Structure formats: C-alpha cells, structure tokens
C-alpha cells in the first residue's frame, strides 16, 4: 500500500471540478472586493507626494495622516455625529420596524393587507424623488441643519418593516398563544417572546441600517449646512476641494470610518445563527 493512499485528508480525486470552478470564482470575487480596501489602507499610510505611486506597500509608510486627522477637532466631531445618527436610527428601526412587522404578521384586522401594500409601495419610490418633499417638510418644521433633520427620513423603513414581517410570520403561533395563557400582555409577548426568536433578522436589519446611515451622503449633505453637524462622509468630502483633492486624508478618514462597521459586524454576526428559533419546537 502506498503512503499516499494511507495518508489522511481529502484525496485529490475526491475534489470535483465544479468545486475548483466555484473556488476560483470566489477567489476572484474576494480579490475584487479586497483590493480597494487595501489601496485605501495603503494610501492612508503614504504622504501626499506618494499618493499616485500605485505600489500597495508604501515606500516610506507614515502615520502622519492619522495623527493629523485624529488631531483635527472637526474629524472627531463628524465621527461623533455619524455615531449619533447611525446608532439612533438603527435603534429606532429595530424597534419600530419590528413592532409594525409583528403587528402585520401576527394580528388579523381589517385593512391589514392594504396597510402592508401601502408600506411596500413606498419601496418603489426612488430616494431622489423623496428628497424634495423631505426638504420641504424639514424646512417647514424647522428641522434643517439639525440632528433630527438628518435622521427623520430613516427612523422607520418600508424595507425593514417588510423584512421583519416576513421573519415574524415564521414564528409559530403556539409560542405566542402559550405566552398569552401564561398571562403576558401583547406588548410583553412581542418584546420577551417574539423578538428573541427573530434575533438573526434583527441583527441583519441592524447591520443594514447602521451601514446605510454610516455611509449616507446625499441627504446629510442636503440637510446640513454648518460643518459641526456634518456626518463623516459629508465631512470627508470637504477634503476634496476644487484646487486639490487630498486623497491621503480622504483615505485615512475612510480607513478610520471603516472601523465601526467592522466592529458592528463582528459583534452582531454571532447572533446571526440560523435555527435558533426552531430549537424550542419539535425536533
């Protein structure tokens, strides 16, 4: 018997050609996604004179950009603004979208379907069309150039409501009925029983909402005028002035801006575990 035949591990003959093709595509996809991030990080470690030198590993790496950006009070302010906006909007979405989604999924009332269709239909309206009414609304209520002005259009979303409704529909009614018999009121049933059963969906919604708001540029740019209310993307764009675009500064800011999204993802991904919900049912 040959050594190859007795050695442990996956024999080459068992690897199907389909797998090799799949892995190749995944590898190419991975490279395409990682390259811009690498360049962002690489550029942030270069000084202004090396920016157009396309080598990934900088010739003379420097942390000057980071020291300068973090020492700049404006950047810290924008960072905090972005955190405030993204966190509040995320909490609001997780709370209200799931409350409405739960109601639409688990209660039978007249007009339920019409309400759902009405909510869904708003998904078909492009943001560009909504900006004008939002602006007029913000202007009339005096919300221009304020946190509330940046946040109000996103406090609840049709997408989040739809997502949560679909997930709540998969929660067996037996759980809710058992809780009803145990004496919980409807709000507590939602909060204590239904919500923990859809944590994977809540995590997904939280990640989407946080990322969406963290990177939001268009609306915050329109609604804010004073620099101290800028969010990070709007603030970073101010590094690109007409005369010169300070790529190394923009990339440094972007590198720092990526951190919270990474942390949020790493923190929430462990909750995205499928099958949690079915564990309490027949198995």
């Amino acid at each position, binding site marked *: 018997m040959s050594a190859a035949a007795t050695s442990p591990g996956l024999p080459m003959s068992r690897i199907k050609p389909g797998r090799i093709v799949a892995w190749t595509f995944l590898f190419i996809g991975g490279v395409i996604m990682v390259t811009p991030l690498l360049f962002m990080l690489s550029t942030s470690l270069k000084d202004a004179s090396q920016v157009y030198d396309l080598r990934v590993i900088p010739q003379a790496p420097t942390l000057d950009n980071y020291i300068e950006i973090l020492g700049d009070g404006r950047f810290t302010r924008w960072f905090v603004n972005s955190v405030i906006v993204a966190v509040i909007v995320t909490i609001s979405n997780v709370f209200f979208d799931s409350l409405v989604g739960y109601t639409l999924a688990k209660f039978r009332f007249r007009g339920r379907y019409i309400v759902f269709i009405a909510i869904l239909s708003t998904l078909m309206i492009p943001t560009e069309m909504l900006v004008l009414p939002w602006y007029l609304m913000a202007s009339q209520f005096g919300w221009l150039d304020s946190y509330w002005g940046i946040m109000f259009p996103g406090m609840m979303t049709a997408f989040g409501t739809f997502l949560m409704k679909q997930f709540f529909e998969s929660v067996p009614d037996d759980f809710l*009925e*058992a809780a009803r*018999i*145990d*004496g919980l009121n409807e709000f507590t049933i939602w909060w204590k029983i239904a919500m923990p059963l859809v944590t994977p969906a809540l995590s997904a919604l939280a990640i989407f909402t946080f990322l969406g708001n963290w990177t939001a540029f268009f609306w915050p740019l329109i609604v804010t005028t004073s620099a101290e209310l800028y969010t990070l993307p709007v603030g970073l764009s101010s590094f690109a002035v007409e005369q010169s675009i300070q790529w190394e500064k923009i990339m440094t800011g972007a590198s720092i801006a990526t951190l919270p999204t990474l942390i949020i993802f790493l923190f929430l991904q462990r909750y995205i575990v499928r099958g949690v919900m079915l564990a309490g049912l027949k198995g």
Partner: protein
Amino acid sequence: MATIELDRLVKRYGQTTVVHGIDLSIQDGEFVVLVGPSGCGKSTTLRMIAGLEEISGGEIRIANRVVNDLQPKDRNIAMVFQNYAIYPHMTVAENIAFGLYRSTLSKSEKRQRVEQAAETLGLSHLLERRPSALSGGQRQRVAIGRAMVRDPAAFLFDEPLSNLDAQLRTQMRIEIKRLHHRLGTTSVFVTHDQVEAMTMADRIVVMRDGHILQVGTPLELYEKPVDVFTARFIGSPTMNLLPATLKEGGAELSTGGLIRVSPPSAPRADVLIGARPQDLVPSSPDTPGLTVSGNVVVVETLGSETLVHIENAGQTIIGSAPGRQIPKVGEHLTLHAPLDRLYCFDKSTEKALAIR
C-alpha cells in the same frame, strides 16, 4: 380543580360552521379525551375552552363561572401544545418558571415550585439546559412542567404526543396518566389517536364534523358504539362490517348465511352486521353467531395474536388467531364470532340497532 361545561357551543368562520352547538359536562378531576379525525372540531373546541378562539355561540363555564369573554390568562387554565412551544432562548428552569409569570409568589417560592415540578418530571438535572439540548420527550416534559407549576384549574392538552416516536409516546402516555392520578386536576386531552384515547381517558368524546357523536367510558364506546363511525373509529384493527338483510328469524348476509338474531323493535331491511377482529376467531361454529370462511390473503404476526385477513365474496374480513397459531396465505379458513359479540347497524342511517 374545576368542572368544565360546554353549553350549545358554536364556532363559525365566516359562513362555515365548524362546531355545531355541542354540549358537554366535564366533572371535577376527570380526564376527558376529545377524539376524532382531522377537521372534526376537537382542537377548535379545546382552543375555545382555552380562550384562544372566540366563541360564536353558546357558553363555556369553568368552575361554574362563565368565561366566554375572559382572556386566556384569566381562565386559570394551562395548556400543552403539540409543538411543545417552549421558548428556545430560555433555560429549562426559566421556561418552567414562565408558567408563574403573573404569580405573586416570592422568588424563593417560585424557585421551590420550579424545582418541585422538575423533580416530578425528572428534569432536575436539566434545569440549566436550553431546549436545543433536550430530546423530544424532555421538551414535552418541560412544557408539562410549565403547565403544572401554576397549579391551574384545568389542563388542556392539544395533541401533545403527536411529535414523539412510538416508544416515547407510550412512555409519555403513562407519565401523563400517572401525573393526573397524582394531581387530580381536570384534564381535557385532544388526540386523533384512538389508542391514546382508550388508554388515557376516564371518558372519551367522539367528534365528527363539529358534532359530538358519543360520550362514554372507553369500554362503553368499545362495547356499545352508537353508530358505524364510532364503531370503526374505536378499536384496532377496525370493526368488520358485512351487509345483510333482516328477515323473519334473523339477518341474511349478502355473502350468504343466516344469523339468528331477534329483530330490532323497528325492523329495517338493510343492515350492517359488525364483528371486531378480536371476536372473530378460527373455530367451529358450534354456537349461534357469525361464521365466515375464505382464503387467507394476508397474515400479520403480532406475537400475542395473529391477525388474519380472509377474502370472502370479494370482501376482506379481518379475524384473529392466537399468537402461536399462524395460518398460511392461501389456506382456507373459517372464522366465527358468537352472537353476543356482534353489532348491527342500520345501513342507511348508520345508527346502531339493538339486536341482542
């Protein structure tokens, strides 16, 4: 503990009536099983008692109190679901304690009750585990624990054993029955399995199409079914039914042969003569009764007895032979049931006729 009374109870979904004004009185401490095929209204009835379904008509009284408009939590009942419905994000102890959610007991008293229930159900060593780490039987025990910890007026069971395998089902059947003997709490148990109904019930309620067909002890239902449906539903294998015509002096089977029975008070021409497989045994017809013969087509060896299927004039009839006596397929066999073990039903109304 409490009595449960259903008075002309009706359930309608839009234009469709699924429960047609049923009356039922359940005594304090009684174990009543609602049994019937899918869609007969048994689960709906149970859910109306629990308060999970609104009542379209009639009245429900628990412990002599009308509960029609009371919320489930105000009815002092506990329910065990088919899917167990134990919360996956809580430990066994938390799940059981959830039954005491509205209780005003102190923390230590609650803890004591949970431990007591866990001990009764053999869950003491699993209190800190989550449902995902439990077997099906253990999960069902947790669900029962959550129900019993509250000391409710009545237990409602909605097909709680349907998801368990055969062996575990038998075991849980015994455990639930033993628990009922110990606690003496009024229990209503829904199942479509007649074996469960027969083995567990003090009284069985047979339902079909939203009507109660018969209420009685397991033996009453077995011995005196009121119609063909109950006769065939209770008992396994199902009762043999042979078409016959009532004549002077007895019933003449359409397959030939006369059974000497005294005619019912209002004789009707066409009837069905019923014989349970356990009563139809290979023997010589030396006593009056039903005698059928034919070739053996299938033999089911069960050990304690052998079920024999014979073909008689195009109809398959099931009889039983002692366990050690195994007839061969194709063999000609004569089966006989004594007169006092026969049943007679009107062929058109399917109601039982008194012939004995």
